[in-house]
């Protein structure tokens, strides 16, 4: 499909405590070998979008390293283009660092792209989707803007702070409001918007002129009466990574092969950077049960119901249960972890037991040694 793909960054309703101190949510590790952004970016390239801009609020190093020139994501190195963009100026306060401000600062790269459509989507929604289906709906309904949404019956406890949509019988969006947990049943906006490029540009400019604090979703909320905004429902497995418990929950849900099959379709692979890691070695008493493990790890202890990243070391006698261990972390001998999230390069050695809960997993900071 002939569209410019824009991967936007999330506003302050999204916070994966601890993990997002060190990198954008887009660059947080998922399921051993992936990063959060891999899912939406693969959706775009699998839909034939060869021209992608990734916007980054701050700390772009991680994304530069991970995305490189886009060739890992099947973006043709001559014909296509993957750009990582960020506001190359100081904002007077972080609150002014909005998606709209960043679009404005990089407007020449949006205006200069020779495509009819713009597709904007954040990375913190994880799902598998062919955006060509959205384009078909968009053309059929002659919408000005199309927006993806998901149905939930857990609106009171989850998806808080997300946009919630009211739609009429024809799926026209009549109201957009922030989900404050009022209704159990809700249509949650996945913040993926498709529209003509010129409309996108004029909406960005209008948002910028309206308020320096406006995000793109704010201008859309204002325009819902004057523009034809169409909702497009999405099914399958969808995770909304807007908090540490939700991030933890998604990783645990993805230990279930049925969910994995919904997220990883044969004809729509999820791409990521590859690292030439050796296979994972199970040594001595090392074993794993109901777990997902990336390559390059050495398992000498026991891993149960967990997600293990690349180059992780699980020591002798250690038991890792219901946990997420990110790249190059180390769990020392005889350490017991339950409901823990151990960030990259962290070492858990002297503390022999860490136990969290589903709602409050224990988080061990990047590079911490405890």
């Amino acid at each position: 499909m002939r569209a410019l793909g824009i991967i936007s960054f999330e506003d302050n309703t999204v916070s994966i405590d601890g993990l997002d101190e060190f990198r954008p949510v887009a660059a947080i590790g998922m399921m051993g070998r992936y990063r959060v952004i891999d899912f939406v970016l693969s959706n775009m390239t699998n839909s034939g979008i060869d021209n992608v801009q990734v916007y980054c609020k701050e700390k772009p190093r991680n994304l530069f390293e991970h995305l490189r020139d886009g060739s890992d994501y099947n973006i043709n190195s001559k014909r296509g283009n993957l750009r990582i963009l960020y506001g190359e100026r100081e904002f007077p306060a972080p609150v002014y660092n909005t998606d709209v401000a960043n679009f404005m600062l990089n407007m020449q790269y949006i205006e200069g792209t020779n495509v009819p459509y713009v597709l904007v989507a954040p990375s913190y929604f994880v799902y598998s989707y062919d955006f060509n289906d959205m384009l078909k709906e968009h053309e059929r309904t002659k919408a000005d803007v199309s927006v993806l949404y998901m149905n939930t019956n857990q609106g009171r406890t989850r998806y808080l702070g997300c946009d919630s949509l009211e739609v009429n019988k024809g799926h026209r969006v009549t109201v957009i409001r922030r989900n404050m947990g009022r209704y159990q049943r809700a249509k949650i906006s996945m913040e993926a918007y498709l529209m003509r490029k010129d409309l996108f540009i004029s909406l960005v400019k209008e948002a910028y002129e309206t308020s320096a604090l406006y995000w793109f979703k704010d201008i859309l909320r204002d325009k819902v009466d004057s523009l034809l905004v169409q909702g497009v429902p999405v099914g399958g497995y969808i995770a909304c990574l807007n908090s540490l418990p939700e991030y933890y929950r998604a990783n645990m849900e993805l230990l279930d092969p049925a969910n994995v099959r919904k997220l990883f379709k044969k004809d729509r692979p999820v791409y990521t950077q590859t690292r030439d890691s050796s296979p994972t070695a199970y040594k001595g008493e090392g074993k794993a049960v109901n777990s997902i493990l990336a390559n390059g790890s050495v398992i000498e202890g026991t891993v149960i119901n967990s997600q293990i990243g690349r180059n992780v070391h699980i020591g002798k006698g250690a038991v890792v249960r219901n946990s997420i261990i990110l790249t190059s972390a180390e769990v020392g001998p005889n350490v017991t972890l339950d409901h823990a999230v151990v960030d990259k390069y962290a070492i858990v050695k002297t503390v022999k037991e860490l136990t969290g809960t589903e709602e409050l997993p224990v988080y061990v900071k990047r590079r911490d040694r405890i």
Partner: protein
Amino acid sequence: MRSNNMVAMILAGGRGTRLFDLTTKIAKPAVHFGGKYRIIDFPLSNCANSGISTVGVLTQYESVLLNAYVAGGHRWGMEGNGSGVFVLTPREKSSEDFQVYNGTADAITQNLDFLDNLDPEYVLILSGDHIYKMNYDQLLKFHIARDADATIAVLEVPFKEASRFGIMNTDEKDRILEFEEKPAHPKSNLASMGIYIFSYKTLRRYLMKDLKDANSSHDFGKDIIPAYLNDEKKLYAYRFRGYWKDVGTIDSLWEANMDLLDDSSRLNLMEDDWKIYTESENILPQYIGPDAVIENCSITEGCAVYGKAVNSVIGANAVIGEGAEVIDCVVNPGAIIGEGAKLTRCVVEDEIKVPAGAVYGSADSEHILLVAGGQKAV
């Protein structure tokens, strides 16, 4: 990064007939190893890690997959200006009739135009049949320090096995005095590893002379090295101390895989500064099921293990079904072990499906069983 004026030429034309069904469709250098690698990844990664940026790969037998695999060289990071991996297959030339490669030396002779264009000072000759990690830059430094015409990497083997190898007899300074192919009564235990550095100008002269010799078999070991020795050229033996294995048979291929599971074997693929690079696939991490039992295994991405795996190497995308058992096995990429099947001391061919309940191999077999094409072959 190019750090020397040396071009590597990998002889990858071998059929590997003793690997039976593993090489009916693909050349031996493309055979899988360690669950995710191919044999040729080892010399190519060694080249990349040694600062060699231009490699010619000479292929001949069933080379479609191999050629596609190595072409371009991006898998080994050789994609910068003036670098790359070049596939060199026999080709028709305006000056003569089409000829396949007749011997290891002939393969190089037929590609002298390729080398002339690159104008290297040194040429490194490698084969695509061995599992080892070696810094060729140290080999080159040795070659330069001795002002040698040729340097041959050698391995000290037990004397009782020496008659299986090409043996170098040297003086006390490791200058080679004599070369004996598979001697019945070996005088030394320095076995040739099939790794040579030649100073290019001299090599070129010898190859041209060898081309005109009707009695020559155009082989480095049988013809070129003896010709050098005959002329009292300076040949030195470089003693390599590290893991090295020829994986020419099912038994030795299995043994090398098992060495991955043994910390004392010195075959370590986890070293960060000497990685073995290979094709990267968009596949899921490995999944270990709720009832899986794993003991001392090497398991790679894309696998799903529901049954039991003991002392085994499990390849990418392989599936060990529920209730299935693999013990002392090498399960190649994409192989599916059906529910309840029991495999002991087997190498399972890539992409094949072992039927549910099948029983192959035994704990006390003399040889390793190759499970191929849905049935067993020895």
